[in-house]
């Protein structure tokens, strides 16, 4: 009798811990997504010497560690934008669904590759099946300002249909590079 009571409590503990984890993630998502700090506020934070940073819960890193981490991540991002010539000018995401095995986020992204600019909206679905995490893009919508080129609009609608975000970026890079080369060549002859 006692053993089965123990089991009931233990099951409830496990289920409550999972729910707490989920709620914490939901809370953090909404906090992250509804907050915005300007560049000045961020600079001030970087310059700050707050010696006793008391986070809301334990396990927070020290201020110097956070600064170093931010610096390293920004260096990586800056390198990638330079290397790929893909500059993202704005990015917003909103978590629309979060359950134990499934997360759906809505993304809005704009940027340019050389002189070609684009605006994207898509939904990112992440599913956890045992150890494997699978990532799928749905509802992709692409806006590009190269209306003059019929091939571009055909290509854009095809990638939209198939949700092929990867193909979009791979082709964007090569097309933009070609376009840039052509543009420079024309300028040269002016």
């Amino acid at each position, binding site marked *: 009798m006692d053993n089965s009571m123990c089991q009931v409590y233990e099951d409830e503990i496990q289920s409550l811990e999972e729910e707490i984890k989920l709620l914490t993630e939901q809370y953090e998502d909404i*906090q992250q997504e509804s907050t915005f700090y300007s560049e000045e506020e961020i600079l001030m934070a970087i310059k700050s010497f707050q010696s006793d940073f008391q986070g809301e819960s334990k396990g927070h890193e020290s201020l110097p560690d956070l600064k170093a981490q931010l610096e390293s991540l920004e260096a990586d991002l800056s390198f990638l934008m330079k290397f790929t010539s*893909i500059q993202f000018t704005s990015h917003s995401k909103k978590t629309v669904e979060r359950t134990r095995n499934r997360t759906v986020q809505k993304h809005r992204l704009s940027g340019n590759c050389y002189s070609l600019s684009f605006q994207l909206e898509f939904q990112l679905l992440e599913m956890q099946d045992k150890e494997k995490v699978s990532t799928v893009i749905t509802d992709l919508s692409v806006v590009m300002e190269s209306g003059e080129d019929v091939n571009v609009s055909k290509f854009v609608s095809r990638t939209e249909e198939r949700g092929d975000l990867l193909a979009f970026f791979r082709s964007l890079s090569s097309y933009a590079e070609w376009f840039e080369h052509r543009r420079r060549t024309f300028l040269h002859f002016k």
Partner: protein
Amino acid sequence: GVFTYLEMLEAQAHEAGRKQEEKKQQEEKLARLKKRVKELRTQKDKLQAKVDLQQKGQTGREGTVSDTTDASAGAVLEWKIRRVKGMLQVFCLTGISGKLTKQGVCFSISTAYEGTYLDSYYLDLLTRPEVRIHHHSVPIFIPLEQIAKRYLQTDIRRFLSVLSDHLNAYAGRKYQADQLQEHFSDQLEGTLQRNSLYNLLVFNYKVPREGKTFPFSARLIYRDLCCSLPTEAMVSCTVKVPESLEETAAAHSELFRHVALHKAFCSFNSAEEKVA
């Protein structure tokens, strides 16, 4: 005699004491668990209330700013870090992402098939004195050395682009074969045979026609390693068949060369349903 009797009493007392101890431990454990459940329920209710409040505070408009005046420097930095990480994740979706290392760069090449992301591969490059591959997770049947020899020294971007073409095509071919086996296993006869590069596929499948099923055999060759559609598709029926089925075999061959494998099966199944 007395001695044995005393021994027995001692054993009984010992046993009784043990049982009592066990019962006490069990009760303590139960009490601990009960307390824990209560703590967690309270914690969960508090969190739920917090989340509900958050959701009420959000208007329909995006980008509603929450009160940021009391944020500590650490909270601001943590927020910014999460944003930059989010941006880096987007780069993964573009196909090429990376991280600077002490000796160079570690690139990550993602593969996908029409919106479903598949495996990603890393390439750890050294940049001094010249660009070299330090470590990588590219499978051995991808001609990495060949591609590196041709492009790595002169044009790293081109190198990554060509490598990405190979990897994505391979991942696409594998994905199609996996999808075929997963969704059309009842139509396949025996196992699908293929090489490591998935550019040679051989399989047998059943074609239903007028109540009977006919055994077909297909052999797909993908000569272009950067393409996920076959350059040759040989389809034949393994027994002697009427002419109409020979036409079907030719039609399937044509379909396989232009349409993804699993979609081809979808399409000739639905076509069959319409005819039948």
